[in-house]
C-alpha cells in the first residue's frame, strides 16, 4: 500500500516536474521575451512594450499568417477525408487484420520525419522513382515537375500527419455503439442520413482532436516546405525560426510564437464550448 502510494506520487511529481521545466518555464520565457526589445549587445533587453505585437500587424506578416492557415486547413481537410473511411474500415476489421493495419499506421514513426521528407524527394524529383516508372510505362514522355511545388508540400504534410488523424478517429469509431446506427435505420433514416446525423456527431470528439493534431503541427513544420517546396513560401514556422536564428529579432519571433499559441488556445476553447453544448443536447 505505502509503496504503491510512493510510486504514484513519484510518477506524478516526475511528470509535473518535467512539464514545468521543459514546457511551462520555456513558454513563460517566450511570453516575457515577446514584450522585450532587441539590442546589438544581447539578444534581448527586458522591457514592457507591445511594439512587437504591433509590428506583427502589418500586411506582410498577415499574409504569412493567412498563407500558413490556408495551407494547414487544406492539409487538415485532406487528412480528414482520407482518414475517416480508413478509420471506419479499421474499426470494423477483424482483430488480426486490424492489428496489422494499426501496425502499418505506426511503422513510419520509427523513422525520423525529416529523413522521410528527404526520402520523398527521391520519389518526386525529375529523375525520381515516380517519374521513371511513369516514363518506362509510356504514360508520360517528359518528367512531371512535381518537386518544389505547393502540391509537393501538401503531399508531404499530409503523408507526415495522416496517422495523427487516423488514430483519434479510430478510437472514436471503435467505441461507437452500433445499436444507435441500427435504431436510426429502424426509424427510417437512409444510410447517408444515419451517418450524417448519428455517426458524425458521436465521433465529433475524435474528429476535433484529429483536426487539432494535424492543423497545429502543419503550421510549424517549416522543413517540409523548405525541402519539398523549395523554400519559396515563407510560412509562420519559417518566419519564427528566421527571427531567432537569422535576423536575431527574438522579441518579434517570440510575439509571433505567442500569437500562434493564443490562436491554438482559442481553438481549444471553441472545441470545449461546442463539446459541452453537444453533451447537453445528448442528455
Amino acid at each position, binding site marked *: 500500500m505505502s509503496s504503491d502510494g510512493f510510486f504514484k506520487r513519484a510518477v506524478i511529481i516526475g511528470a509535473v516536474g518535467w512539464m514545468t521545466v521543459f514546457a511551462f518555464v520555456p513558454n513563460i520565457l517566450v511570453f516575457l521575451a515577446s514584450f522585450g526589445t532587441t539590442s546589438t*549587445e544581447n*539578444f534581448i533587453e527586458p522591457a514592457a512594450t507591445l511594439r512587437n505585437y504591433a509590428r506583427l500587424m502589418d500586411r*506582410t506578416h498577415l*499574409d*504569412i499568417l493567412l*498563407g500558413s492557415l490556408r495551407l494547414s486547413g487544406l492539409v487538415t481537410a485532406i487528412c480528414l477525408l482520407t482518414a475517416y473511411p480508413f478509420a471506419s474500415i479499421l474499426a470494423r476489421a477483424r482483430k488480426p487484420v486490424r492489428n496489422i493495419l494499426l501496425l502499418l499506421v505506426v511503422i513510419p514513426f520509427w523513422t*525520423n520525419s*525529416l529523413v522521410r*521528407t528527404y526520402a520523398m*524527394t527521391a520519389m518526386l*524529383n*525529375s*529523375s*525520381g522513382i515516380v517519374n521513371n516508372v511513369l516514363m518506362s510505362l509510356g504514360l508520360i514522355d517528359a*518528367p512531371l*515537375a512535381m*518537386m*518544389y511545388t505547393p502540391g509537393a508540400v501538401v503531399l508531404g504534410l499530409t503523408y507526415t500527419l495522416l496517422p495523427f488523424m487516423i488514430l483519434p478517429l479510430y478510437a472514436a469509431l471503435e467505441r461507437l455503439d452500433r445499436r444507435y446506427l441500427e435504431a436510426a435505420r429502424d426509424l427510417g433514416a437512409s444510410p447517408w442520413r444515419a451517418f450524417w446525423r448519428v455517426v458524425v456527431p458521436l465521433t465529433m470528439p475524435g474528429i476535433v482532436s484529429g483536426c487539432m493534431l494535424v492543423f497545429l503541427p502543419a503550421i510549424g513544420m*517549416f*522543413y517540409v516546405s*523548405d*525541402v519539398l517546396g*523549395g*523554400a*519559396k*513560401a*515563407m510560412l509562420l514556422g519559417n518566419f519564427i*525560426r528566421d527571427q*531567432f*536564428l*537569422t*535576423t*536575431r529579432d527574438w522579441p518579434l519571433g517570440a510575439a509571433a510564437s505567442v500569437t500562434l499559441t493564443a490562436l491554438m488556445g482559442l481553438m481549444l476553447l471553441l472545441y470545449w464550448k461546442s463539446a459541452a453544448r453537444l453533451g447537453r443536447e445528448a442528455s
Partner: protein
Amino acid sequence: MKRLVLLVLSLLLASQALAASKELYVYNWSEYMPDSVLEDFTKETGIKVVMSTYDSNEALYAKIKMVDAKGYDLVVPSTDFVSRMRKEGLLQPIDKSKLSNFGNLDPKLLNQSFDPENTYSVPYMWGSTVIAINAKDPDAASITSFADLWKPELKGKILLPNDMRGVLGMGLKRLGYSLNESDPAKVGQACELLMPLMASVRVFDSDSPKQALLNNEVMAAVLWNGEAYIASGENADIKFVYPKEGFSLWVDNLCIPKNAANVENAHIFIDYLLRPEVAAFICQEMGYSSPNLAAKETLPEEVRTNALVYPAPEDMARGEFETDLGQAVKAYEECWMKLKTE
C-alpha cells in the same frame, strides 16, 4: 530541415563536451570537410572529432552567443563574422607557436583588417559565387550575367541561394552597386528589380544546391563555386560563369570560441588542416580554393588550373568581399521578407 536535427544534436553534444579530454567538437559549414579527413586525424592522434554543421553565419553566431561560447572547440565563420565575434569577445587568441604549418598560408590572405595579425583566426578556405548552368538547355547555355536570369525563357528553371545577402547581392550588382550597400534607397531599388525574378525561381537552397541541378530540376543555379565544382564533376554538361556584373567572395576562418573545453586539441587539429597534403586533399574534394600555398603546389594540374577552384585574375577583379552591414541590415531584411511572401 537539417538545421532542426542539428540543433537538437548539437545541444546534446554541447552538454557532453565539458567532460571529455580526447575529444574535439567542431561546428562547421555543411559539406565543407570530408569525413575521411576526420577519420585520418583520429587514427593519427587518438582525438575523436565530433562535427555538427550549420548553413549560415547567422546561425553559427546565434548559437555560439546563446551557449556563451562554450561547447564547441572550433568554428569556421566568414570574415565579417570573425570581426563581429572578435569584438564581442566570443573568440580566444590562437597560439601560433603551436602551429608549425602556419607558414604555408598565402600572406596575401593574412593580416587583414577583420583580424589584424590573425590573432583570432586562421584562413581555412576561400571561394566565390558563380552561376552554374546545364549546357543542354539552350536558354541556360547562353547565360553570362545575372541579368540573363531575368529572361522569360528561364521561368521555373532557376535556383537561388536561400540566403538574404546572396539574393539581394544579385540585384545590387546588376545596378552597379556594392554588395555591402548601406543606402536604404538603393537597397529598395535592388528589391524592386528582384521582385519579377521571384516568379522564375523553382527553388531556394543553400544547403545542397547541386542536388537540384543534378536531378535536372533546374537549368541555372546561383551557388558557391565548390558546389558547382562537384556538380560539374558528376555531370559534364554542367558549366559555370562568373557573372559579368560582379560576384561575392568570402574567406572562412578557423576560430576557437572563448570558452572552448579542448583548446589544445583544437590547435592540434588546426595544424593538421594546415599540412600541405591535407589542405590539398580537402581542396580537391570540396572544390573551394585553398589559402595554403604549399598545398596549391602539390595539386594536380587540372585542379590547380581549374577556373572554378582558382578563378583567373580578370574574373577575380570583379569579386567583392561581403562585410558586416551594421544597422543597414534592416533594409535588407525588409526586402527579403517581401520577396519571400509575394
